[in-house]
């Protein structure tokens, strides 16, 4: 029997949630309380346990989509037989059937119980005799017959007639301030509720062209999409602004011929030792950074304004900026300078996989001493990275690609990569920053050099 699991309200009064990651796929066997999906709400990232045992029939929401509370997100085929008289479930069944014909995601998203489905039981018709005259109460008093009928069906049937349609108090205030009559609007929210966007759209329309009143919802005026600033985005913004305005940044650039390094990588990949790990150019850069930092300890340090001290770190806690579905986060490779190339490659692989799946523990995000940002994966040549707050330097690694290069006075095609190093000029001088960057470049140009350090 097909059972659907509706997006629950996991936090007292939430209206929607985003599906972040599915942990199951159609065909998987699931048990009760098995974690099947991670969702993110305005309050928290939460793992949802499965309410049914059976086989996953269908995932009804793609990762990254936000759906209202109450919308079905997964269908599970359970072992139990469908009830013989499917009377109450009929309504829901029909909807699901339609959805199946129309295409899976498109129709089901935004499909919660609220849009237009808040339906009340019919009132007994006024002509019918009142079902029960106001019953006598024990003390002999009667319910006053003149009490207003608060749930008058008239209001429910023709919302445009008299009363102002539903809108939340701040939206009412906004409409009042903008001089918009709520009666002239059609609500686009759940159950016909007028939203802030409706009012703003109406205000924009009336400002531009005052003539046409109440055009059916025009949410795409100017093609603007507004998203609340929250979570990782807010943290990123705060960190970047604080860094940019506290640490005087200097950025230096260096183009490097990495042909030798790439050749070394190809050789190593063929060896048994590297069979299990994904050896990326980033691992070589990380190794070069650790080696070079040993010669220029100033880059592995931080400025402690409060204590009036510069803190030099013995070990390199290497942050790797990772783009995740939730935004930019920088998990750390602990004591990176003590790791071999193979260990670095393995650590990087694990780190990025964990970050992408959104499971990086908070402890892994703090306590970095140096950061590498791999902008090359986006096909970009270089950039001017902004320091992670509290760190002295950050290295951006550009795209690695064949380029014209002068070798022994002749033009040749070599594999080239651009490096950009930003450093905090309060504690790193141009000399040290340049030496550090040149060292990294030298190591990547001629990896054999590492033997001599």
């Amino acid at each position: 029997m097909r059972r659907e699991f509706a997006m629950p309200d996991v936090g007292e009064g939430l209206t929607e949630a985003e599906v972040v990651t599915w942990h199951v796929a159609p065909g998987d066997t699931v048990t009760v309380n098995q974690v099947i999906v991670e969702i993110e709400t305005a309050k928290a990232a939460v793992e949802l346990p499965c309410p049914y045992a059976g086989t996953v029939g269908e995932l009804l929401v793609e990762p990254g989509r936000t759906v209202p509370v109450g919308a079905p997100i997964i269908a599970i085929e359970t072992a139990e037989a469908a009830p013989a008289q499917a009377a109450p479930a009929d309504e829901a069944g029909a909807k699901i059937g339609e959805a199946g014909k129309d295409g899976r995601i498109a129709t089901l998203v935004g499909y919660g119980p609220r849009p237009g489905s808040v339906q009340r039981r019919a009132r007994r018709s006024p002509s019918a005799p009142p079902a029960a005259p106001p019953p006598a109460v024990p003390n002999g008093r009667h319910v006053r017959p003149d009490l207003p009928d608060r749930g008058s069906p008239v209001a429910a049937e023709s919302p445009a007639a008299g009363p102002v349609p539903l809108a939340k108090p701040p939206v009412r205030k906004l409409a009042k301030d903008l001089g918009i009559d709520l009666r002239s609007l059609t609500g686009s929210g759940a159950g016909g509720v007028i939203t802030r966007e409706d009012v703003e759209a109406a205000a924009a329309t009336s400002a531009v062209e005052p003539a046409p009143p109440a055009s059916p919802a025009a949410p795409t005026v100017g093609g603007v999409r507004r998203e609340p600033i929250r979570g990782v985005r807010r943290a990123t913004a705060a960190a970047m602004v604080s860094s940019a305005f506290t640490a005087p940044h200097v950025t230096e650039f260096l183009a490097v011929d990495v042909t030798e390094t790439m050749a070394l990588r190809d050789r190593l990949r063929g060896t048994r030792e590297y069979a299990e790990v994904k050896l990326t150019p980033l691992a070589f850069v990380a190794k070069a950074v650790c080696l070079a930092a040993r010669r220029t300890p100033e880059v592995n340090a931080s400025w402690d304004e409060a204590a009036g001290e510069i803190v030099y770190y013995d070990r390199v806690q290497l942050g790797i900026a990772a783009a995740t579905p939730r935004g930019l986060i920088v998990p750390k490779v602990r004591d990176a300078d003590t790791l071999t190339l193979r260990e670095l490659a393995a650590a990087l692989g694990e780190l990025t996989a964990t970050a992408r799946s959104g499971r990086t523990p908070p402890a892994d995000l703090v306590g970095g001493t140096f950061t590498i940002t791999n902008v090359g994966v986006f096909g970009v040549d270089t950039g001017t990275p902004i320091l992670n707050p509290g760190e002295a330097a950050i290295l951006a690694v550009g795209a690695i690609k064949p380029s014209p290069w002068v070798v022994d006075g002749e033009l040749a095609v070599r594999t080239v990569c651009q490096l950009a190093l930003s450093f905090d000029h309060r504690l790193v001088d141009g000399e040290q920053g340049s030496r550090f960057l040149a060292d990294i470049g030298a190591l990547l140009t001629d990896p054999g050099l590492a033997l001599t350090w």
Partner: protein
Amino acid sequence: MSDPHDWAPSVPAVPDKRPSREHVLAALKATDEGDPNLVQLLTPEGERVSDPRFDHFAGDVDSAALQELYRDMVLVRRFDREANALQRQGQLGIWVPLLGQEAAQIGAGRAMQPQDMVFPSYREHGVAWTRGIDPTELLGIFRGTDHGGWDPLATRFHLYTIVIGNQCLNATGYAMGQRFEGRVGNAVGAGDDGSMNEATVCFFGDGATSQGDVHEGFVWAAVYDAPVVFYCQNNQWAISEPTERQSRVPLYKRAAGYGFPGVRVDGNDVLACLAVTRWALEECRTGNGPVLVEAFTYRMDAHTTSDDPSRYRLADELELWKLKDPIERVRVNLVREHAVGQEFFADVQAESDALAARFREHCLQMPPPAPDRMFANVYAEGSPTIDAQRAEYLAYLESFEPEGSLAGAGGEGV
């Protein structure tokens, strides 16, 4: 300042002698690790250790009794986890997890006598269990169908109080009543079972200690010698606020300022919680109340299902406390010192799964309460106003077509 706990705030003769801020903050947690001020009978490694003051109060706990305590904690944790899952599946509006506080609650709960009265906050699912309240009875509150369905007088367990610290006033008042009615300090004769002497236990958290109600409760209880055990489960976090935002002295030391004794017990040690609460109750029943017990424990899950603790505390703190798990240490002790076999643990596990299944089934089958239910217990003997409201409301509901003629999809609450 060799021992931060000896620090009594006073005007220092030499300014340098004042402890530093760090020193004071450390004192809030220092007794967590082998400090003599922390009462502990079972170490996190499951080793039974001796405490000359409280050994006597756990002297009767043999292997069978310890197995019962273990069973209590496993069952309570199991249905707590099930409730958490049910909330995540949309079956409960909210759940307040007790994960990590099983020992603090079972130890205190099992120390009570049937005649003792309990005033819980809203996390005391384990204490409710020890008062014979079936876990399914807790569900209505969290599913939004009920304000609490058990009889507080029959179970001697008051309804959950959501307002933080508010129950300290009720508990103190109740305990004062116990004293006024002469149910404290009676001589126990040879044939008596001691049930003529009573006490009250009031449960609250570290955050509640900052509330005015708790202060008032302490003051009144102290000056009226009320037989109340103030049982503070210090789980280190008041939602997102750490203990250092509640106090500059360890919480149990506050009792001294009110003029009654305060004891800090390892809240993850069920044996110590049992012994200390038994002592505290005896003090109260014999007329030496009130007493403050600070059960030093840790909230291992979120404050409620609406909360995300990863936003304000680091994961390594939780990892540290996992090593002090209240259930694991009893398990180790049972195996090592009482030679309890695997069969027992498997049985308890099976029993807990069955309880969870019954709990889930009950939750899914819960009928909404009858519409007149909310009028039922407003007054003990009814009231014309409430009666009229009930009649009006039922007439209003009667004005609808019957259920069969539903105009739209069912299940949507209005």
